């Protein structure tokens, strides 16, 4: 049976840091899955993500739609024309996020990112659009847009590749 779910890279935050970048991501897969387990230093925040080829696109090419519940009420909101995709979820308490990059290596379509984020405050689903057709081989994660808060020590980022065949 073909292997369809392979680890590409993993990183454990050794001490508080604001961002981490996966580079030279193999183009041999169909989709990517990024699993984040950990927390940040400041509180409620989405994980800010930029993608690109060779370097990340820092233009205002990202938009995100959110759906979330906090245990009492549910809501939806949207960010558009942003310089970061606001994907999934982190908090100061332990949480996890599963982020899927669909058809990341094609060079003809804009890219879609699906996020499922969970922490002590919210459960959240996000979908982000990247208005860029380059194949993604670089993914930058930052604890917030401004880089003013950190991923905490022990937070893990693991990138998997998924093959359709």
């Amino acid at each position, binding site marked *: 049976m073909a*292997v*369809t*779910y*392979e*680890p590409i890279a*993993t990183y454990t935050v050794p001490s508080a840091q604001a961002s981490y970048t996966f580079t030279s991501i193999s183009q041999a897969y169909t989709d990517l899955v990024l*699993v984040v*387990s950990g927390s940040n230093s400041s509180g409620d925040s989405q994980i800010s993500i930029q993608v690109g080829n060779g370097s990340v696109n820092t233009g205002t090419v990202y938009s995100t739609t959110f*759906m*979330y*519940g*906090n*245990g*009492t*009420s*549910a809501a*939806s909101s949207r960010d558009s024309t942003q310089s970061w995709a606001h994907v999934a979820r982190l908090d100061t*308490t*332990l*949480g*996890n996020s*599963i982020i899927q990059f669909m058809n990341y290596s094609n060079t003809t379509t804009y890219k879609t990112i699906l996020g*499922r984020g*969970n*922490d*002590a405050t*919210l*459960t*959240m*689903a996000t979908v982000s659009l990247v208005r860029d057709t380059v194949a993604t081989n670089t993914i930058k994660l930052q604890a917030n847009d401004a880089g003013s808060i950190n991923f905490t020590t*022990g937070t*893990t980022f*693991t990138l*998997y590749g998924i093959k359709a065949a």
Partner: protein
Amino acid sequence: MATFIKIATVDLTGSQSSIDFTSIPATYTDLCIKYSARTDRANTNSDIYLQFNGVTTATYSFKRIYGNGTATAASDGLTNNATGGFAGTADGASATASTFGNCEVYIPNYAGSTAKSWSVDGVNENNATSALAALYVGSWSGTAAITSISLKDYNAANFVQYSTATLYGISKS
């Protein structure tokens, strides 16, 4: 190297009150349970919850957001619940015959020495007005490695025949 490895599958040939995975090895990075379930609860759906390591103290917290085919969305949650934490949905006895709920439970860093979290995407389909699509998040404040997981109906109903659950281990190397 294959990283999404089946640890165990439970296929029900009759009714039983829980689906249990025991003696889970600590050799993986994350765990994932995919299950298809129906219960004998007299309702169109059942809330399924999980327990880790047989713990029944007030250590589970969870939240949920859902759409049921009528309301656009609603959510609820409990903190420090002793019974367990919500981990999906199954069709109940009032649902259309032969329909089952389907859920994926993801548990990262299950063998670590910190508190554990899980997330769930779940649906039940009823081929009628009432159905459910839901997202869940939960946390367990226990710091022991997870060595067993039990899935149960929140209203103490039984899982029925043809319900199935598979536990996978996911390795990062």
